[in-house]
């Protein structure tokens, strides 16, 4: 199947990404330097930085809405460092993530972390860590929001009032 390029789709994709924070998207010349260093790409998430930009600038915003690659971005920002055109690809990746979130196309791996965050104040918080802490003579719950009800409440209030809260996540 060949790709059908349509001006309206292209304009809409570019506008959406720019509005959501990926301002440099049109600077990209598809040199590939970002993908050469991206740990996400190396780990097998191909549609990051360069290829994500390519797909967006050909107007495939809706076609790739379920693409999981964007959730593999580690926000390491190496792409931003090496990009010769000042695209700041990581911002494009995040803009696309925002778009995906708004459309509720959020990968399951991410929902779990979101819920963890809401419930404990940590994106990554596992049962096994309690055991580990005990072994080295530390209290089971760390002295963070996990054991500070007041602090946790504040985080939850913040989340509820954020765009994430508006999505009806929590």
């Amino acid at each position, binding site marked *: 199947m060949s790709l059908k390029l349509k001006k309206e789709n292209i304009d809409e994709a570019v506008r959406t990404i720019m509005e959501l924070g990926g301002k440099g998207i049109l600077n990209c010349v*598809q040199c*590939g330097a970002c*993908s*050469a*260093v991206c740990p996400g790409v190396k780990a097998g998430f191909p549609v990051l930085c360069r290829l994500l930009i390519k797909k967006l600038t050909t107007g495939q915003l809706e076609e790739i809405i379920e693409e999981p690659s964007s959730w593999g971005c580690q926000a390491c920002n190496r792409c931003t460092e*090496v990009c*010769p055109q*000042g695209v700041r690809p990581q911002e494009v990746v995040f803009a696309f993530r925002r778009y995906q979130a708004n459309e509720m196309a959020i990968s399951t791996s991410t929902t779990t972390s979101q819920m963890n965050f809401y419930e404990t104040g940590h994106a990554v918080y596992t049962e096994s860590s309690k055991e580990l802490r005990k072994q080295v003579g530390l209290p089971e719950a760390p002295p963070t929001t996990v054991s500070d009800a007041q602090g946790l409440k504040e985080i939850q209030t913040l989340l509820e009032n954020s765009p994430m809260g508006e999505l009806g996540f929590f």
Partner: protein
Amino acid sequence: MAKVGVYVCHCGSNIAGVIDVEAVRAFAETLPDVVIARKDLFMCSDSGQEQIKQDIRDGLVDRVVVAACTPRTHEPIFRAACEAGGLNKYLFEMANIRDQASWVHPHDPEGATEKAKLVVASAVGKAKFLQPLEDKFVNVTDAAMVVGGGVGGIFAALELANMGHKTYLVEKEPSIGGIMAMLDKTFPTNDCSACILTPVMVDAAAHPNIEVMTYSEVVGLDGYIGNFTVKVNRKQSYVDWNKCTGCGACAEACPAKAGDEFNQGLNDRPAAYIQFPQAVPKKAVIDMESCINCAGRKIGSEPKVSKKTGQPMLAPCEKACPADAINRSLAHDPAGSIEEVNVGSIVVATGYKVMEKESFKEMAPESPNVVTALQLERIISATGPTGGKLLRPSDNKKPKTINFVSCVGSRDEKHHTHCSRVCCMYMIKQARLIKEKYPDINIYMHFIDVRTAGKDYDEYYTGARKMGINILRGKVGGMEILPDDRVRVLGFDMDQQEPVEIESDLVVLATAIELPKSATTLGQTLGLQFCGSGFFRELHPKLGPVETSTRGLYLAGCCQGPKDIPDTVSQAKGAAAAAAVPLAQGRVKIEPILSEVQPEKCSGCGICVPLCPYNAISLKEWGERPRAEIDITQCKGCGVCTTACPSSAIRLHGYEEDQIMAQIAALTS
């Protein structure tokens, strides 16, 4: 009463695409003193110009206003048309309705049309006060100077000399030759660089009309086209070049060490040295920065006398010289000696430098096995540090895998946004030369895209693919140093959409071509302008590629922008042809748009003298008292003096008070 003819141009769609040309024409017809208003698709075409000439010949008009593109390119054309029709060419005025209306207001056709009307009204207002002026002429010095002795400078000098003009070739290094002299072989024919360049260098040095001034730099410029005075600093070499035979004995004897510039710092040279084996002139110099004053022979002092032998104790270099050419008793003069040279025109051909690898921290510059392409050029050259054997710098072993990395510092907004233009080709050249000699070496080349647009160039590239050289499309993102002085190259294969990692014994960086700092200083000395990429700016990117905005100064080679040898030589010959024009004519025209002091009004206050940016004004005796006087050869017609004079004694011809006032009136009424 003046009879003004107005001619409005469509300039194809340049003007007519935005502006209602007929509305402007009809409006012009209503202006006072306008007797005729016409329009044409292209006023500069034969028929457009003929219309102007005919109207003049018919006695219809005696002032001409053309509303068109820009005086930068077209004023001379319309002035010539007026002259051909029998009208003084300074009775012409241009209304710039392209740059100032259609181009700047493309989204507001009505506004642009209204503005064009105003611009035309202002030109018409001025036109009726225009007065005939006469061109002036001054004689020229029949000699030229070429600054920079690379392949561009050498060819420019030879061309000028062959046309019969005395030519000074000024080069800052001890020898001419420039970067081409450092290259091994040259694309697209792979002939040996030294073999084709050396004979030309010798020709230039032996030419009766060329005076080669190496180890010299231009430090001052005075004058104007036809009559420049150039100050040249001849650096002190401490070697009498009349005696030096270029035998190299001093270099052999000298124990001091400094990085060898010609070999791109890959090895050391002594303080007493000859720049390279084929140097022209082949003369030694002593570089005082690295000289260690052996035997206590401080420069500028008499030798100590040995207590044992009673003989003067000389430094090894002095002792070794069979021609007695080295004189360390000469006083050290860091400023060198200044020579003044009079010439009629100047070609600047000062070339380029490649960026050092140290500018790119992501490219593992600390690894000795990451080299610039110019360093590789020396590594594979028979006169280079390894005698032409391909050995990697860390351990002098033959590399098994080589990676070439393009666009390092080029096409990158962090360094240079321009394409350096020769890298794709020279990398393919280097890869081919290596593959031909050592077919067992693995070669990977990383390009954003391959740019080989030149006669026989793409064939050269596809040939490289046929030889089994691996080409990957994708910019290298970084490098990591591995044990054994190997380097991991983090690349990308665009075709497979996969990142690639290649372990490499040697990595070659095609670093960007840029203007060296020294050239920036020279540019300021000569009054040259710089373009967005940092090179010297030509007069017009298409129509004035060798001229500059200073008449009499011309450009050739990489100082004007990156280019290869064929393009450098072509441009050099073009620049020489342009530089020869004033010399061949024997006199140059000076446009009469100049200021003039009316002595009877001048109070001799002298306020104008220090204000003139071109030092054109001096106070002279006139009658009993001092009066200002303007040297027409220096005046550039900027008008600063006219506005400053408290007695309104200075007139700027072509921009007289009544003319300017009429323009203002037309714009404000």
